[in-house]
């Protein structure tokens, strides 16, 4: 056996076995607190005016809970993160790295917007909205299934494939906007308000929240209680086991991606039809990627994902407001805070999976031999 290089680093990592749920959540909670503390420190660094440290935290809560409108906007923001995250979670469970939620939602939004705008005005609005829903979901499915088919048939790398599909969708949106509105190629024309579902519920964002709650419960049931969900876990843990007991993992992959695409497409439909009533190439603005982080942090479990979505949605809206309070540029501030918090929380996962030990100078090999006997 070749001699291993000598490592003198005083700390080393060991895999943890059997960590209690309480400790896990304590570590995570601690990480979130540390992250928020760092975010506060960062915010004072970023603003030269020397604003008090506490203003950042005040802003976080004032921006999210002060008015009833704020709370509804917050719920809508959380719901979009939640929907995008639970859309990618099932595929992640079987180690299919679909990071194309952004593009799938965009594809759904594009088709929705085109249908809502271009259908003749003689058609009843309800019918047009239903058509847009079907079209949006189908577009999401198509955007998701193409990489899945190639992954299954030719073993094409799905991470890179879905990543590229995101950008194709973004530029297609820009193309559609410029194509439809030749006089103002930067902006999509306003969609007739009667054709959005804003009016049905009276308040703008409610359909998105309802969809998020319902789908989260459904998906929780699907993943935890059905045979389909069980199959995903088996494939994720061991493809060989899955093959041995006769699971058709290629069909399961395609089936799961159809579901992912459908939910993402639905998000695209909802954003256009219940929130913005227009199309822009920055409609999803990176939230699909953040959702991937959320899904991973939540261990692909809808209940945990919901918790992290709340955190990110809260930070997103709260820090934007806090920025205006502490005299920072609010457009880019939330990105800094979310990115920082994510980095810290991701780090915390290490302390859950591994234990840090101090290297002991005494050799314990003789002891080990005794135990073996």
């Amino acid at each position: 056996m070749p001699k291993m290089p000598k490592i003198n680093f005083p700390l080393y990592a060991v895999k943890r076995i059997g960590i209690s749920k309480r400790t896990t959540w304590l570590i995570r909670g601690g990480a979130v607190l540390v992250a928020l503390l760092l975010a506060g420190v960062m915010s004072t660094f970023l603003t030269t005016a020397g604003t008090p440290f506490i203003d950042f935290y005040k802003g976080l809560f004032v921006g999210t809970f002060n008015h009833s409108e704020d709370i509804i906007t917050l719920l809508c923001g959380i719901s979009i993160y939640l929907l995008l995250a639970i859309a990618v979670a099932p595929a992640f469970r079987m180690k299919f790295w679909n990071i194309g939620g952004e593009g799938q939602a965009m594809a759904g939004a594009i088709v929705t917007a085109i249908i809502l705008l271009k259908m003749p005005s003689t058609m009843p609005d309800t019918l047009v909205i239903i058509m847009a829903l079907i079209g949006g979901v189908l577009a999401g499915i198509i955007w998701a299934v193409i990489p899945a088919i190639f992954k299954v048939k030719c073993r094409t790398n799905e991470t890179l494939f879905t990543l590229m599909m995101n950008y194709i969708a973004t530029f297609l949106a820009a193309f559609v906007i410029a194509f439809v509105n030749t006089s103002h190629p930067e902006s999509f024309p306003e969609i007739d308000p009667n054709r959005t579902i804003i009016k049905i519920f009276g308040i703008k964002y409610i359909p998105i929240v309802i969809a998020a709650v319902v789908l989260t419960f459904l998906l929780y049931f699907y993943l935890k209680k059905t045979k389909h969900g069980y199959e995903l876990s088996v494939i994720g843990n061991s493809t060989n086991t899955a093959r041995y007991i006769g699971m058709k993992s290629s069909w399961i992959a395609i089936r799961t991606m159809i579901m992912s695409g459908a939910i993402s497409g639905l998000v695209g439909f909802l954003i256009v039809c219940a929130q913005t009533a227009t199309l822009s190439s920055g409609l999803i603005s990176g939230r699909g990627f953040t959702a991937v982080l959320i899904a991973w942090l939540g261990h692909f479990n809808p209940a945990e994902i919901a918790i992290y979505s709340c955190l990110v949605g809260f930070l997103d809206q709260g820090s934007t407001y806090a920025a205006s309070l502490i005299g920072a540029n609010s457009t880019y501030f939330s990105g800094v805070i979310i990115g920082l918090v994510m980095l810290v929380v991701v780090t915390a996962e290490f302390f859950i999976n591994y234990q840090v030990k101090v290297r002991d100078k005494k050799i314990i090999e003789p002891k080990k031999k005794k135990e073996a006997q």
Partner: protein
Amino acid sequence: MVTLTLLVKNAIRYMAVYIFGATGDTIIEKGGHLNMGVPGIMFFGAYGGILGTLLYVNGVPADAPLNTALIIIISIIFATLFAAIGGLIYCVLTVSLKCNQNIVGLSITTFGIGLSRYLISVLPTGNLRLVEAGRQIQNLFPGYMSAGTFGEMFLSGSFFTYFAIILAVVVSVILAKTKVGLNLRAVGENPASADAAGINVNAYRYLSTIIGSAIVGIGGLVFLLDCHSGSIDPTDAVDSYGWLTLSIVILSAWHSWISILISFAIGMLNVLPIIFTDPAVTNLIRTIPYVATIVVLIVASVLGSKKLQPPAGLGQNYFREDR
């Protein structure tokens, strides 16, 4: 002919961004890191470079001329430093703390884009000296017009253009022909075997990612200082160039010298709006690099050709006890 000259001239300008990005990313990926943080790291580099240039131009008296060599050296030092910090964060999290590479990468991209955009937005805008510095470095050979059409096409680039080309070739040679390159490729292909052969996997992964990140950072700097002539704007989509470099690496089959040609082609696509003024067509053209990447990915996987495949250990962390 005039249009073609203009196209090539502009493609030469933009291509350095891609070459730096792709070369740096090739080094990172050869070590087995699928670094989705590249867009964020590129943005870090862009900000760092601009900050360095600003510090320099502010230090020079208002009527004194700027020194081209100093602009280039200072901006490169700052850009590489800032980008290397991004790479270091990535390494600490993936190598030492064994976090999922995709997740860490995406976090760094979110953080990097957010922070850099924010910091650029608070920089004083409309700094004329910065623009002057940007203009000053744009032509390495001031007499390029005297070499006729050829000169206008290929000799009009900045120092960065030619530096990028040389660097890509050098990196290609190092990766293919030297012991260090061989070791690095071994670490990327099969870290367990490399470890058994006595290669320090963690050290190689740390160094390759930090050096690669620094090179990626120069790409961001070139974008703001050279291509945008130092007129900075936080809405500049440096990150979209970062994502493109990921696809260029695939298109070049992990050979940085091939990435020179691909960068040139994508640089051409970038400036095609000069011909097609219709914004709809422009946006459609922008999808071409991504579609081409997908086609290459599919062709590579159908052929099963090993030469076109990513390093086998790409995206997987190495923990000795997992064996």
